[in-house]
């Protein structure tokens, strides 16, 4: 298997040989979830040297030979590193996330469409998304649109279901059922190098242009800084077939309109490394987008004119310091501001249009302490406090504020064959509104237990089990949105139980490796927040009615084979089986029906061949059929799909600059399949990219 880059941070004292065998120690199973320092020096047998000279040590849990983060993780963990991301022909984070197993991405088509990720049938609001170590929140909808994050500078994308192996992280990272972590590239300088960067340009079908650049500078021995910017322009006017009947011959060819996108992003990170065990990261980020919303394709009514503007600015900082050989603490803080404007210029109400502006802001602060009591036992305590506020120009909007306090206490025990953690997250939430009644205060303690056992020391075979109870708060929309909100909503509860096996093996002196994992799980969601049309068919309300019982199986397999220094093969395959049944009311027509938009089976695959002349990759996404409503009737059936893509890439060196050229063909079979009914996906499209690294 690929020797994945573990997000390892090293201090320069390691480089200088202060700790010689640490330099050799590279088989670190690092969790990319956190960038904090939790160092374990293990005296086990052999370790492999990674070729990366400058690296960070994250929270390291070394558990033995040939272990890799996914295999030894006590909860299902899937990683995609930079190379794998290239192989799956993805532009945005949402494209890459589709390749994880156990994941359903609701994709509304085109580059501008909203994309949310739901893990194991629990719903998008149960999945946390973090960007470089701090979670992103959207209290308005409770869902994160992962379509807006590009993969340009992403170093590792990982999905952890349940708590991971890390305990030394902000309390909010423990708060939801799963965590999708986006980690960007950390600047790595060669000896004597002062700065470097890259400039790239992508162009593709349907009027897509995406220029980007990245500059990384070593300011002095203490500070590095990077600056990246990108823009995406897209017309989105792809052709699709509009079917009028179930008969495959009854269609017309249409063009998707009002689907244009203009987004800009600029980001800067400051990295400070001071004395031993002391570091600082400060991030500044600004994002802006302007999108047409094409809406569902409604038969005989082809017009759409809705528009959405988004602005998002945030600043986050991370500081950590060793207090003593046994204690480390970290501080995290974030201020986030976002603004959204929605326009429907053809509204038939008396104002003639709907022109709504929403502003949210968040102030977040977290402090965590790690105490390595003994060599095998450690404790971590985190406390987070944050305030979320929202205002809007809606009539009679209550302008809610939510005050949240989270504290987490975890304990971890590690030895050469076992890894166990137990944690308790205490949550306290208080809401305030300017008018009307606020949601009720909420207090809860959510437990989580993880265990991973390696029964045979000679085999990289692990057995794992975890249990986690968690919840998600109703969003501000759920509670307060005009006539639809219901301020007496309770949070949705989730319980997860997972049992898994992993096996990895490498031979041929590390030239061939594979990893296999399989997990069976049982999740339960209660008090599910569902929209019900009360009042009249246009005004729906949110209610806590719903119980979902989810049982499933996730399988993952990866293999790589290095034939020689010029030729390499890699292969990956994921498959999920999920039974997510509505068990709310035995008398109802949807009882024991699969919930809407959940396929019974889905999966992904990728294959890549590296040769001296070109690197070819093929990727595949497939989904079984689904039902568009909770009632599994054949007329509600949305057929499954297969989405194949191929790419070819080659790097040259010209005048000392690294030039990389890439060509991709997406959706080879040119089928306008639908992930969400009446939102056709683009057919076959092309993308070309050029990048110069200096």
């Amino acid at each position, binding site marked *: 298997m690929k020797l994945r880059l573990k997000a390892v941070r090293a201090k320069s004292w390691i480089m200088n040989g202060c700790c010689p065998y640490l330099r050799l120690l590279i088989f670190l199973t690092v969790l990319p979830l956190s960038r904090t320092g939790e160092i374990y020096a293990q005296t086990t047998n052999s370790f492999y040297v990674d070729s990366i000279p400058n690296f960070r040590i994250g929270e390291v849990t070394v558990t033995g030979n040939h272990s890799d983060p996914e295999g030894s993780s006590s909860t299902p963990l899937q990683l995609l590193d930079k190379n794998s991301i290239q192989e799956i022909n993805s532009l945005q984070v949402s494209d890459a996330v589709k390749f994880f197993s156990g994941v359903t991405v609701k994709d509304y088509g085109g580059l501008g469409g909203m994309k949310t990720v739901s893990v194991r049938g629990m719903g998008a609001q149960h999945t946390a998304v973090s960007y470089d170590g701090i979670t992103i929140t959207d209290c308005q909808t409770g869902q994160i649109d992962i379509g807006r994050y590009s993969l340009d500078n992403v170093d590792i994308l990982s999905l952890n279901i349940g708590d991971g192996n890390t305990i030394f992280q902000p309390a909010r990272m423990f708060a939801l059922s799963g965590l999708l972590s986006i980690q960007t590239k950390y600047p790595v300088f060669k000896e004597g190098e002062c700065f470097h960067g890259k400039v790239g340009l992508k162009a593709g079908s349907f009027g897509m242009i995406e220029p980007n650049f990245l500059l990384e500078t070593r300011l002095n021995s203490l500070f590095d800084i990077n600056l990246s910017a990108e823009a995406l322009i897209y017309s989105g006017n792809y052709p699709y077939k509009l079917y009028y009947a179930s008969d495959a011959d009854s269609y017309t060819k249409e063009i998707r309109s009002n689907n244009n996108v203009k987004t800009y992003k600029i980001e800067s990170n400051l990295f400070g490394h001071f004395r031993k065990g002391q570091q600082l990261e400060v991030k500044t980020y600004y994002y802006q987008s302007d999108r047409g919303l094409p809406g569902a394709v409604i038969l005989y009514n082809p017009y759409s004119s809705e528009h959405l503007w988004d602005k998002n600015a945030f600043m986050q900082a991370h500081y950590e310091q060793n207090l003593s050989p046994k204690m480390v603490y970290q501080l995290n803080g974030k201020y986030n501001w976002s603004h959204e404007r929605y326009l429907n210029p053809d509204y038939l109400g*008396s104002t003639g249009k709907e022109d709504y502006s929403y502003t949210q802001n968040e102030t977040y602060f977290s402090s965590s302490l790690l105490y390595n009591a003994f060599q095998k036992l450690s404790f971590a305590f985190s406390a987070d406090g944050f305030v979320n506020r929202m205002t809007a120009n809606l009539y009679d909007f209550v302008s809610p504020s939510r005050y949240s306090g989270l504290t987490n206490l975890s304990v971890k025990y590690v030895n050469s064959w076992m890894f166990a953690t137990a944690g308790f997250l205490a949550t306290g939430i208080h809401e305030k509104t300017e008018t009307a009644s606020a949601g009720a205060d909420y207090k809860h303690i959510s437990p989580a237990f993880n265990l991973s056992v390696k029964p045979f020391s000679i085999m990289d075979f692990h057995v794992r089990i975890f249990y986690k109870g968690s919840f998600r708060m109703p969003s501000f929309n759920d509670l307060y949105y005009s006539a639809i909100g219901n301020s007496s909503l309770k949070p949705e509860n989730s319980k997860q139980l997972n049992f898994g096996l992993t096996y990895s093996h490498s031979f041929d002196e590390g030239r061939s490796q594979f990893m296999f994992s399989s997990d069976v799980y049982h999740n339960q969601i209660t008090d599910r927040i569902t929209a019900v049309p009360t009042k009249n068919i246009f005004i729906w309300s949110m209610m806590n009615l719903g119980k979902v019982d989810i049982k499933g199986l996730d399988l993952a397999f990866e293999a790589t084979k290095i034939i020689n220094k010029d030729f390499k093969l890699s292969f990956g395959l994921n498959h999920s089986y999920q039974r997510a049944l509505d068990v709310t009311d035995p008398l109802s*027509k949807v009882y024991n029906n699969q919930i809407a938009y959940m396929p019974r089976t889905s999966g992904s695959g990728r294959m890549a061949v590296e040769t001296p002349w070109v690197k070819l990759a093929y990727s595949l996404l497939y989904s079984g059929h689904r039902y*568009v409503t909770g009632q599994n009737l054949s*007329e509600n059936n949305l057929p499954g799909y297969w989405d194949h893509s191929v790419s070819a890439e080659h790097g040259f060196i010209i005048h000392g600059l690294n030039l990389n050229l890439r060509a991709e063909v997406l959706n080879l079979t040119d089928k306008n399949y639908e992930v969400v009914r009446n939102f056709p996906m683009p057919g076959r499209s092309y993308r070309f990219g050029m990048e110069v690294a200096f």
Partner: protein
Amino acid sequence: MEIYHTIRMRKLKTILLFVPFLISIMGLFSCDDMESVQSVSTTVSSDERTGGLYVLCEGNYSLNNSTLALYDFQKSTLNKDFFQAKNNRKLGDTGNDMQRYGSKIYVVVNVSSQIEVIDARTGLAIKQISMFNGSIARQPRYITFWEDKAYVCSFDGTVARIDTSTLEVEKYLTVGRNPDGIAASNNKLYVSNSGGLDYATSAGYDSTVSVVDIQSFTEVKRLVVGLNPYKIKADSYGYIYVVSRGDYKTISGTWRCIDTNTDRIVATYQLDVTNFDIYGNYAYLYSYNSTTKDSWIKVFNLKSRSIVQESFITDGTKITTPYGINVNPDNGDIYITDAGDYVSSGDVYCFGSNGVQKYKVANAGVSPNTVLYVGDLADSSGSSVDQAFLDSTYLYSVIAYTPAPGQFTGTYPAFTDTDNMESMRTKAEVLLKGKTGGLVTLGRYGGCLTFAFKKAVVNASGYDFKIYGNAFVNSAEPGIVEVSVDANHNGLADDAWYELAGSAYSDASTIHHYRICYYRPSSPSDSVPYSDNQGKTGYVNAYYPAWQGDSIVCTGTLLAPTAVQNTTGYWEETNLAWGYADNQPNQSDLSDFDIDWAVNAEGQAVHLDSIDFIRVYTGVNQNAGWLGELSTEVTGAKKLH
């Protein structure tokens, strides 16, 4: 040895490499065992042998899954997407209203912003009328009819006038905000302006009903009713009833009665009515509270203007979410639909007027909102057994169609410049042959339809044949029925005619041997001059049947005028006891005829063993104010044995 061992190890390792790979491939093909749920729809046991129930289901917003389902009584099958099966395209998104007018059914598809006009008998689409203002969808909601025009109200605040022959929109009129209901009565339209799209703004709901004069197509008055007006329907006494839904929070719903003569609100009821339908003397109301999930269904008497039944359903049938409520005017059955959770498919319940469930059509579609019985459904299977049955049981041929002047003469069936006597006879035959439900108007006194069954009608004991019309209580236009035997066996109806003496035959006010002559006016829309053998001359209302000669002579028995004006000024077309066509409801045996009633020209009873020809002519010569002239309508005929 060592090398051999290494090779063996390598092979083993290679195999080990592939085992998990194979397992994962096997896992890959772990079957997708998710199968569609079979939705059960009951076999309906009903005494209707022919015809069917159209059920319009809204579907879910933006899923393009609105459907028009058809339950065919003859085949006992439910076709959930009958419209798509017939027209090879889907209905669209959110079918909101469905009404029949003449031979066509109009379906208002709200989100797709179209009106689908389909042939009632076959379900084939005739025309799709787009309701757009440039690129902005008007979002049509409800439809009503008056004379030869259809009127559709749309959320964009307009009422569209559509001609029912050309199916083109002629004109738009702007009324109040977000109209969500329209009714026609007394030459006026009444439009409920809900203002519903302002529910989240400071403007809030509207609370008015616009009164539109049909002739000028302008708004003449705006009445203030309760907040958020919705369903609006006309009764047959000149009153309009309208629901006001309140604001779903603090202001509860009310129900009001408007007098169409004065255009004033004459009564306000503190009833939180959600939806209702009117038939004859009764209104059937229901109320559904979405928060508590409670509902009630009550019966309201339109003459006494009071609730006469606090709980309509008498047999304990439980309806979770009442949604659509429609009365079948042919037989008085009441259909109530259950929308359930608005996401899974809903059911249609049929109740008799006694509140006892007759049958249920389960899983008709998502949110069924309108149920329409169509008696003259075409038999698409064309199986020879059924066709033979229809041929021998129902009206087989129209021998002559000679209507008198009338407001619908030349409309039902429609006359065009290329038509003549023979082609009009053919049109009448197409409407009536082998089925019921097609409508042929006879015009005022003396207008006549002569027809035959495939074989002679034998005079057995009891009733021998039925003539279908469109009568119900206080809505009768009696036609006198005569029979004839083909004595000369020439197949032509040139033999003696005998009147079937009905209940009014021997009344003192009945005139025998009446004769009237109508003269063609100079232009088709002019009043028609007449003279009769009672010494009267004058004019009657248009239209003269353009395909006939310059004068029409009608002779026969003249019944005394049957329509009376009641104290409110509204006309009641009273029913005679028995023995006349278009006089009593079709489901009653009072619309049946016995050949034993035959009398000769002197009024003496004659005994006929069997008869070959039948003719019906309008028996009264009367105008009922704004209702126009009384004119017998025939919608079919059937042998009873």
